[in-house]
């Protein structure tokens, strides 16, 4: 058994490419688990970060600093009464959240967390990603239509119009990134997600900096389009709270609603990981070429452990600052325990074989986390666009920009 | 101004005086819209502040309907009053000031005074099917339309 695991760890292809069904299954489970944890963490972090941006504290009651709040929320959602409007189309109403969740999760099949850490390395990875992620609009339209109510319907229509139009700008930006992979001396382009990151490795630059500022503009287009794709502020019209109460999921509650919630956050993570893969060098650590050699390799490989130790230190600091009242004893002990677990994980990450394997995933997640932080920041900062303005931005600004960038990238690539 | 208007309408304007520095005039209901129109166009009372009513159950003409007007250029207010009996109608001033739209609806709602020519005269604050007009003096302070409460709220009484 151990040998089997070891033999796998030394392999350098993804399980999908190796045709190893067992490992592929393990990976799918891991991704599912990791995503669920990430969504829970995002839930807490978003509320906390947003709260601190808005001079308030956010959740503070359930667990120390509200750490257990997402779990409490999840329990609440699961035991809630399952309400289906009498006029709704039961089957479509039932199937819509599942469609949304499945499509968003399926995207992660091609997302490479490391050179071998992906379920499979598809040679049409980018195409697959674009195709599958655009399917989720189907689920949203189904949800809006099946509710048989005005607000969800309008939310769903807004959502579909928005996603369809931003997908074009998004695709143009993606194509220009793909084009960059082929503009090397070998002239071999690729649509494979792993291939794209490897191309960035070979070309010694993240694509966001390539053909400056073309890569940056393409990244910007993608970054805007991905916010619109995931229906987040300032493009959160489909669920514009002040206009449409909650948009397409107004009639949903309890577990079905939590599926939408899960899908929304997973979609955010999915598009962020695509952006990271295409432009921010995927799993590559910063400055792989400028800071080459044994010492800087070592320093960068210590980062994961240091991060966890830092988090542990923060937990211990908060523990020390907890009120000294007996009422808070359980919370204080819990927070200290949480800090201890974090510290332990951090220490394990310093062990040589682990830190070598974990580095790719660490850098990838860090970049995704940064992107997620930006999501929260936008939400705290911007008012919401109006629908016609949103369309204007999509069709009159991003689309011409995307076409321009694409053409220029092609020209520049050929000339250089 | 009053003299000029009096000259035009004669006995239509019954009274025009000042109380505590505030001007008011009492006019016949038949000329009210015409007068308001003239006040707006010729005397520059371009802003209809309020339309309201008073109920004097012991009088023969039970209701006072009052327009409070303001003139931006003259920085002056004036109240125009007219008296009507219960069941009589007043011509609507919506054609003079659109602002009177909801204000007249409220007067109708509260006093049951009907305005002739109002485009959408229905209750505004109370529910459509309510019986009675609460600001009339004969409407008790804890009186309610029990029937409405029972039908629409499904409770015995709202008190």
């Amino acid at each position, binding site marked *: 058994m151990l040998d089997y695991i070891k033999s796998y760890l030394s392999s350098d292809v993804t399980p999908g490419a190796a045709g190893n069904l067992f490992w592929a299954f393990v990976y799918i489970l891991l991704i599912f688990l990791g995503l669920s944890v990430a969504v829970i963490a995002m839930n807490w972090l978003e509320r906390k970060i947003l709260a601190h941006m808005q001079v308030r504290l956010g959740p503070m009651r359930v667990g120390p600093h509200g750490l257990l709040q997402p779990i409490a929320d999840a329990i609440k959602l699961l035991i809630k009464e399952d309400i289906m409007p009498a006029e709704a189309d039961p089957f479509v109403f039932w199937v819509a959240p599942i469609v949304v969740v499945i499509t968003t999760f399926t995207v992660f099949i091609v997302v490479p967390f490391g050179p071998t850490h992906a379920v499979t390395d598809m040679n049409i990875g980018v195409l697959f990603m674009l195709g599958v992620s655009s399917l989720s609009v189907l689920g949203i339209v189904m949800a809006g239509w099946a509710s048989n109510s*005005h607000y969800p319907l*309008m939310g769903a229509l807004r959502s579909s119009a928005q996603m369809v139009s931003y997908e074009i700008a998004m695709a143009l930006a993606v194509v220009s990134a793909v084009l960059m992979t082929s503009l090397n001396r070998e002239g071999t382009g690729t649509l494979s997600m792993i291939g794209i990151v490897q191309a960035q490795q070979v070309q010694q630059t993240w694509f966001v900096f390539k053909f400056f500022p073309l890569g940056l503009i393409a990244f910007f287009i993608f970054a805007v389009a991905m916010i619109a794709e995931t229906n987040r502020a300032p493009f959160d019209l489909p669920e514009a709270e002040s206009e449409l109460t909650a948009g397409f999921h107004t009639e949903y509650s309890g577990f079905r609603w939590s599926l939408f919630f899960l899908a929304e956050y997973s979609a955010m993570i999915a598009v962020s990981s695509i952006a990271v893969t295409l432009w921010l060098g995927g799993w590559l650590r910063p400055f792989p070429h400028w800071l080459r050699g044994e010492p800087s390799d070592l320093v960068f490989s210590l980062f994961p452990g240091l991060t966890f130790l830092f988090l542990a230190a923060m937990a211990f600091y908060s523990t020390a600052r907890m009120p000294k009242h007996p009422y808070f004893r359980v919370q204080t002990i819990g927070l200290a325990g949480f800090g201890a677990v974090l510290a332990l994980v951090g220490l394990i990450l310093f062990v040589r074989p682990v830190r070598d394997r974990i580095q790719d995933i660490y850098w990838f997640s860090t970049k995704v986390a940064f992107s997620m932080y930006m999501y929260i920041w936008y939400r705290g900062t911007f008012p919401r*666009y109006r*629908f016609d303005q949103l369309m204007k931005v999509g069709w009159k600004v991003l689309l011409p920009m995307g076409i321009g960038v694409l053409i220029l990238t092609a020209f520049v690539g050929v000339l250089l | 101004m009053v003299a000029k208007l009096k000259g035009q309408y004669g006995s239509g304007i019954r009274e025009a005086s000042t109380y505590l520095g505030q001007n008011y005039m009492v006019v016949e209901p038949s000329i009210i819209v015409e007068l308001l129109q003239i006040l707006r166009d010729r005397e520059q009372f371009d802003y209809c502040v*309020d339309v309201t009513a008073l109920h004097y159950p012991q009088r023969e003409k039970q209701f006072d309907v009052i327009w409070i007007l303001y003139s931006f250029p003259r920085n002056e207010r004036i109240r125009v009053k007219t008296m009507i009996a219960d069941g009589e109608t007043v011509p609507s001033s919506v054609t003079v000031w*659109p602002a009177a739209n909801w*204000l007249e609806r409220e007067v109708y709602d509260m006093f049951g005074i009907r305005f002739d020519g109002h*485009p959408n005269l229905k209750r505004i604050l109370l529910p459509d099917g309510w019986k009675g007009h609460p*600001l009339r003096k004969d409407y008790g302070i804890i009186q309610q339309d029990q029937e409405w409460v029972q039908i629409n709220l499904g409770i015995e009484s709202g008190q």
Partner: protein
Amino acid sequence: MPDRTTTDPTTYLSHLELGEPDKTFLDSNELIINMGPQHPATHGVLRVILKLDGEKVLGTECVIGYLHRGVEKIAEHRTYAMFNPYVDRMDYVAAVSNGLGYCEAVEKLLNVEAPPRARYIRVILTELNRLASHMLWLGTHALDIGAITPLFYTFRDREEILKIFEKYCGARLTTHAFRIGGCLYETYEGFEGEVKKFLDFVTPKIDEYEELLTTNRIWVERTRGVGVISEKDCIALGVTGPVLRASGVKWDLRKAQPYAAYAEFDFEIPIGQNGDTYDRYLVRMQEMRQSLRIIGQAVERIPEGPIMAKVPKVIKPPVGEIYHSIEAPKGELGYFIVSDGSTQPYRVRVRPPSFVNLQALDIMVRGQLVADVIAVIGTLDIVLGEVDR
């Protein structure tokens, strides 16, 4: 900016003809949507029936009265002094203004005048209240348009005002700060210092709000050219307050017919030109700064002396009637009080600014999008407690 009331008088009078709700609404082009009475953006229990073509608004009809408490009826069964706390419950975010209007109206009817110190205290508290009201407006308006952060900033700063109220009269929201004839409470120890400290505290905060919104591209796009109403339409519809001033009418009751001690202060009336939502936003922001100016002057010059005029224990105004109005944060707040010589008013009519301003909603949103309806409801700054009374 077309004057719709004069060029096409039918537009403002039309209303929706609502038949039976269409069961197969997917087949029809026109959609009738019920916004409210429970809706996150209608500021309480306003119900707006929207007739839509896609997202375009063809017409609206407001259904109000969900918060009707019969304030005017109650007034007829209370003595003059007993009715005083009730007026705070109308525009509950600007309770001090309501109280000021009522007290001054009754004082006029009694032919007494509050002593100078009382009038200065009234000005300070009323202007603080205007600030609080505008802050609440700004927070909720920004929230409606999708910026969630300003809400918390404005509420943080409004809290400081409420603290001053609480220290002065013990209540934070429905203050009942003034009495007929003056003020009941002398200012507490260190009142002037605290107000001055507040002025220093809040000036940079207003800059902060402006920094977040005034030049924010999305904010400008969402508000400029939205809910335009012309000067003539405003006057014809009786719209007052910042909405009227944003359309370019330089009219403020504090200047036009000064009450309390407003004649003694130096301040300006900010006006806009376009009468759109952005101008109304700017006007209100400027008004907040002007309020600070007034408070600053009032605190500097507050005279010593009595705070209560000689008012009989039992208030029995002579037979007569009075209309007195003040510039509340929302517009002209008028009280029409009729006395029959007894201890209870024969009739109290409140001229609510929100109620009259809300009439303009239809003309402002017709032809615009659903999202603009929200923006316009926000920019009208209505309080349903006052609309319904």
